């Protein structure tokens, strides 16, 4: 008998493998009211094929699944543009209090004044960080904030009788959500080239500056991890042509207390609270994507916003809809549980702490850049912000791709960086260490990357077959796409 066969918990077991008819993982009380007539049978369902498992089955199954994940709590996770910093545990504890987690979104406002005050305070703090005069916490994620932003830009032009402004400029180095969001706002996407430093081409922007220009969507710092010193000039150009500037705040972790988008000329910026304000990423959500805006867009903010009303009995808080709002982004008021965590984080750091956080984030990225530049090609050889992009083109010429290097990192217990992004860098690896990682962790990572670089020279096969120690190896993704198996089916 092999060890695998003898194991009581098989690696690839599904919930249905452990299910047995008749088991249950919960017991609810009997009804305490007189029996009521049931609806007619034709409205009722007869079959519900959910797995039947005991409570311990549930715990063992999902605990085992969790153990197959890399996470910030378990591994260094330098996933570029995702800001995988430590998520303080107090944030979850605070958000789990019944006074936050247990309240209904449609309770009378007088019964939820504490929640409303928290939202109002967070609005003010995010406005302070971005320099913007107004904000809405309504968007539920970064891309949702982008959608809110482009809809506000559309509403602004429509209100001025300039509905012909249909062109949204987006650099070729942008995240895919930018063009997708612009398209959902009804805009035509025009891609603008970047120079070798990932900076948007000024001449190309200038050439597009006509009366069809709606705006520009641009990431700060840019997706090469660099701050464009001419960004204020870019904003002026767009404004001069009657357009507005959207700031993708995915990389705001570099700028906390260092620069404010409002000062640079941005009209709207979204913040990814799950990145910059350290709320847990949850395997791909939930996040939150509040939008902060300048004067031009304030009337168009998505609803709701929280207002403070000072009356004789003290301050009261209430939801309000801006005068020319683009409308609601969700049925609720925003991802409140995420907002509580973000507010707790902001209060834990304060202005000095945020500034130190961005400083250490940038320090760490530059430390990795200098320590690794002799083994991996740095995409742009200059001081970076919070992340550094390497190109594995030299390794590719030896038959090893960025993908193979990434998979080998897994064997050393490191979550791979973002691969093949930005698209303008060949064989890109985008490394974002974040400020919460210690020098020992960074030094260990440097040693891993040096070891892998040696393996590229000496034993490339070990990379091509990596990872070696995970529950599964490289998966047949072509099969997954050709014959989609998207749900369990009874055999």
């Amino acid at each position, binding site marked *: 008998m092999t060890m695998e066969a003898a194991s009581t918990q098989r690696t690839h077991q599904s919930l249905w493998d452990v299910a047995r008819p008749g088991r249950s993982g919960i017991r609810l009380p009997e009804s305490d009211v007189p029996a009521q007539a049931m609806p007619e049978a034709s409205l009722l*369902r007869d079959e519900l094929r959910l797995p039947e498992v005991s409570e311990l089955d549930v715990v063992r199954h999902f605990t085992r699944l969790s153990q197959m994940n890399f996470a910030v709590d378990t591994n260094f996770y330098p996933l570029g543009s995702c800001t995988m910093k430590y*998520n303080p545990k107090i944030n979850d504890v605070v958000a789990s209090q019944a006074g936050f987690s247990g309240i*209904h979104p449609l*309770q*009378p406002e007088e019964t*939820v004044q504490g929640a409303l005050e928290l939202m109002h305070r967070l609005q003010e703090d995010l406005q302070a960080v971005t320099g913007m005069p107004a904000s809405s916490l309504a968007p539920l994620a970064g891309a949702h904030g982008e959608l809110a932003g482009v809809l506000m830009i559309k509403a602004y032009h429509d209100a001025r009788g300039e509905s012909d402004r249909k062109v949204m400029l987006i650099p070729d180095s942008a995240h895919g959500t930018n063009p997708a969001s612009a398209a959902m706002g009804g805009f035509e996407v025009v891609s603008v080239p970047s120079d070798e430093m990932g900076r948007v081409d000024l001449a190309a922007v200038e050439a597009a500056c006509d009366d069809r220009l709606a705006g520009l969507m641009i990431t700060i710092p840019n997706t090469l991890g660099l701050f464009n010193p001419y960004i204020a000039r870019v904003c002026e150009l767009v404004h001069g042509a009657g357009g507005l500037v959207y700031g993708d705040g995915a990389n705001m972790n570099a700028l906390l207390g260092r620069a404010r988008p409002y000062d640079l000329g941005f009209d709207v910026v979204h913040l990814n609270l799950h990145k910059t304000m350290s709320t847990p990423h949850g395997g791909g959500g939930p996040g939150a994507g509040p939008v902060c805006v300048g004067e031009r867009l304030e009337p168009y903010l998505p609803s709701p916003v929280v207002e403070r009303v000072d009356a004789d009995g003290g301050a009261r808080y209430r939801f309000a809809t801006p005068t020319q709002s683009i409308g609601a982004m969700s049925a609720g008021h925003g991802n409140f*549980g995420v907002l509580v965590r973000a507010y707790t984080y902001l209060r834990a750091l304060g202005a000095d702490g945020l500034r130190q956080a961005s400083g250490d984030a940038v320090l760490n990225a530059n430390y990795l850049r200098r320590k690794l530049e002799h083994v991996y090609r740095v995409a742009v050889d200059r001081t970076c912000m919070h992340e550094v992009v390497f190109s594995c083109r030299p390794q590719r010429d030896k038959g090893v791709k960025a993908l193979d290097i990434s998979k080998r990192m897994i064997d050393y217990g490191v979550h791979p960086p973002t691969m093949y992004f930005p698209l303008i860098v060949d064989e890109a690896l985008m490394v974002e260490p974040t400020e919460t990682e210690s020098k020992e962790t960074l030094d260990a990572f440097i040693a891993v990357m040096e070891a892998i670089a040696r393996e590229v020279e000496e034993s490339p096969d070990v990379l091509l077959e990596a990872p070696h120690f995970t529950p599964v190896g490289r998966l047949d993704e072509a099969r997954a*796409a050709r014959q*989609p198996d998207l749900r369990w089916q009874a055999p």
Partner: protein
Amino acid sequence: MTDPFPHSYLPHTEAERQEMLAVIGVGSVDELFADIPDAFRNPALSLPPALTELELFREIGGLAKRNAVPGDYPCFVGGGVYRHFIPSVVGAMISRGEFLTSYTPYQPEVSQGTLQATYEYQSMISEITGMEAANAGMYDGASSLAEAALMACRVTGRHSVIVHDTVNPRYRAVVDTYLLPQGVEIATCAPGSEAFSDATACVLAQYPDYYGVVRDLTPLADRAHEAGALLAVSADPVALGMFRAPGDMGADIVTGETQPIGVNMSFGGPYVGYFACKMAYIRQMPGRIAGRTVDHEGRIGYALTLQTREQHIRRERATSNICTSEALIATGTAVALAALGPGGLRQMAELSYQKAHYAASEIGALDGYEVIDNGAWFNEFVVRCPLMGSQMNASLWRRGIIGGIDVGEAVENGLLLSVTEMNTREEIDALVGALREIAEGGAR
């Protein structure tokens, strides 16, 4: 430059910072920001002072205590968000750091936990809705319904949708936000009076509807299909524990909010919008999808699949701009559904049904109140009250009861009340007593 701020989240000692700066070849951290023009660099941030962990509990915990929590007070508010029992295993599982602090499973070899949980979530959502496939999750039920309408436009090549006036008005608002800027026409009508045309991409229906009513959707599905349109339904997943699945009645897309199954109400979010459809339309589906496949040794494994639909590949031609899948919340729903099983989900639905019908019969017997009868219903109902709904709520709150939702726009003096298995008979009887008192004594 202020002194470095020692903090438990920031591990570097000042000596280490200096050592690292020397490696980089600069004299200070501030020099690393030299690309930011002086005029913009180092703005003063007007933020309140930092607090220690102990102080944070006091300060922010104080805000939590200023909210009235359903359960501490009888609560009959629903309207798409419901207080159902959440098995203890849900919190225990989704607070595990490996689920909580991982991200999108771009590297499947080290994300099998999230990916398999997603696949199992998709499987169970497909089953309860009666559909062939489901995605990994959308932001919430409202945006999920809006995306269903956009998907129907892509599938049919048409640009007009019909929305029932019995769809949750907060969902309808989001449908407007998403569809109108893209030039999609929206017509509103009562169920049964749809004016289909050859421009109709779909009809959006809610099940049970906003006022609690459960209708057989089969005739609607048939009429939509005859017109070449799709039927997209927003359904309460707990109701599907006892009522027929929309897929079983001909729906093409089924969406909704999984909040009632294993998700805290949390003042409106985070939740997850579920999204299920027929396999024929899978390539027009928005959002992330996990699929089962094998590795090079033939071992079963899971990976994100059909990614060419998504924004990171198709950019402005993607099926949606969505990037997240609210994975943690979806995992919570999967854990809750596993714990509940078919018996638990059915029991949860039936207890809600029984208690709600008990409450309705008691309230209907009161002088001054009328329960609106529109046929079969689940756990929510409209009462015509002696006063406006908002006044009723204010009077109820003075008696320590969190009332319902003012639906005066649909029924004069209408109050929408919701009852679940969490409401005890004592709470229901207290509500009935308070309503009697209000009718007898006016708006005090």
